[in-house]
């Protein structure tokens, strides 16, 4: 079988299987799921009743908890991500060993990290409290209320996800020309000033990408909360899964998944749009 190389559309034939696959396994099911979520389980008519029903099962608190968790986890990941990226952007003896250590959690299965953190932060006692007791600090109840539970989850989640953020930020940092820093040093700018006036503004693309990738993944956080504390406080994902595994029809879980989708996409749009606005402002 020979194609004419000159034919304008021949590359498309090679890409076609991938496009068909993505449409068939991703876009089509997502679309039918969302479509079905707007239909009545009994009459099959167009309705929003599935969504109003969800409001009686703690939809709003699930939304609020998901947003809090996303914001908090992103804050921790970016703080540590910038620290690690700054460290790795320097050359020093032993850098590759440190780099290996920082990257290790990236490959660990979410279920494994969730289980490990359930040993570190169990309901009573545990490794974190035993460590604190060495320093004479009283045992902490990591799940004393919904906010504390979310905070514990943020800590556990950031362990596995910070490496990705750090690597993306490192890629951004390494494309900043060193002359910029030398000039700033001559002008007497300290490290913090240099970070905010040179590093950050010169890597907004990478920050945006990291924010979108991690932000959407954070909305989808599932195995970790499920293993650490179960269904309460509810998140959009655990609420969806709860409906999926306990109700006989899929309508409620689809409606809940649709809301998850809307929030994840809304978040991505806000990030991209804000980036555009900043870009327009700078130009």
């Amino acid at each position, binding site marked *: 079988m020979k194609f004419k190389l000159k034919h304008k559309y021949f590359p498309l034939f090679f890409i076609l299987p991938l496009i068909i696959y993505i449409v068939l396994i991703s876009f089509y099911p997502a679309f039918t799921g969302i479509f079905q979520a707007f239909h009545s389980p009994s009459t099959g008519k167009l309705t929003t009743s599935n969504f109003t029903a969800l409001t009686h099962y703690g939809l709003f608190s699930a939304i609020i908890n998901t947003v809090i968790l996303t914001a908090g986890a992103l804050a921790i990941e970016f703080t540590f991500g910038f620290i690690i990226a700054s460290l790795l952007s320097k050359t020093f003896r032993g850098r590759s060993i440190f*780099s290996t250590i920082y990257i290790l959690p990236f490959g660990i299965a979410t279920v494994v990290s969730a289980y*490990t953190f359930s040993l570190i932060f169990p309901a009573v006692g545990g490794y974190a409290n035993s460590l604190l007791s060495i320093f004479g600090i009283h045992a902490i109840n990591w799940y004393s209320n919904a906010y504390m539970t979310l905070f514990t989850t943020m800590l556990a989640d950031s362990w596995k996800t910070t490496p990705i953020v750090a690597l993306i930020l490192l890629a951004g940092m390494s494309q900043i020309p060193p002359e910029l820093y030398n000039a700033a040093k001559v002008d007497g700018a300290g490290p913090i000033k240099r970070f905010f006036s040179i590093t950050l503004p010169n890597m907004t693309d990478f920050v945006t990408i990291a924010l979108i990738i991690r932000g959407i993944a954070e909305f989808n956080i599932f195995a970790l909360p499920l293993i650490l504390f179960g269904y309460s406080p509810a998140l959009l994902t655990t609420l969806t899964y709860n409906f999926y595994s306990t109700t006989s029809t899929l309508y409620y879980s689809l409606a809940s998944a649709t809301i998850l989708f809307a929030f994840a996409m809304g978040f991505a749009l806000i990030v991209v749009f804000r980036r555009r606005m900043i870009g327009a402002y700078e130009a």
Partner: protein
Amino acid sequence: MKRKTRNKYLLYVVASVVAIIFIYPLYILFLVSFSPTRYTLDELFPSQLLSHITLANFISALTQYNFVAPMFKSLEVAFLVGALTLAVAIPAAYGLSKMNKRLANLIVVFLFMANLVPALVIAIPISAEFIKAGLFDSVIALALAQSLFTMPLATFIILGAFRAIPKDIENQARVDGMGVLRTLYTLLTPLAKAGIAVAFLLSWLTSWDEFTFAVILSPLKPTLPVIVYINITEGSLVQAAAFAAVISIPVIVLTVILQKYIKGVYLSGGLTG
């Protein structure tokens, strides 16, 4: 000069503190899986140090649970994901490498957008489809779903590998009368083997770790991550620790091997610049 040594000293202190934080959870996992339970899970405030080593937890996990079936399921799915991903991503990357760069980058971005649709949003509708098709709990169904995570990244990595091959090599083969498919599979693919190997291993790793699709599409014939979850919900925490350690060993080896390829530019999917 003095300031410089002080800065270097500070660098090592910060680097070490962060390293300890990052290594600590893994240390605890292996501590629990290799210690007798009376020093770990049975203690309210367990000791941080390893005092006794035992393989009893592994033996109990491997004898009490059907370990072989989930292990094979995980391996089958992971290899199938790797194979499916390459089968689709190699031609796609080749097609993209033949296109105008701007259009190719636009398509790559589109592929990564597909990656951003929440797994639950896809998993629930396709579970219904797979039940209808008689594929529920099957290896192929799970591999088809998990490949969603791996296809875009693999295509992007292989595209980079193809772009790095000098154009003259391919042109010469064409002049010699080689067909497009032969050029791709007998000439270009071997030249891009490093990138293809990385794409395969990252896909393998993604599938080996994956949970959301696995728990929804294959709950009755579980993979290893689902077995860990089942153990935890049943309260068999020692066995869960042993399984978790077993899952993590190939992962740690692969991460160390792949670390120079796990780059921010790859992970961001070429969405920048």
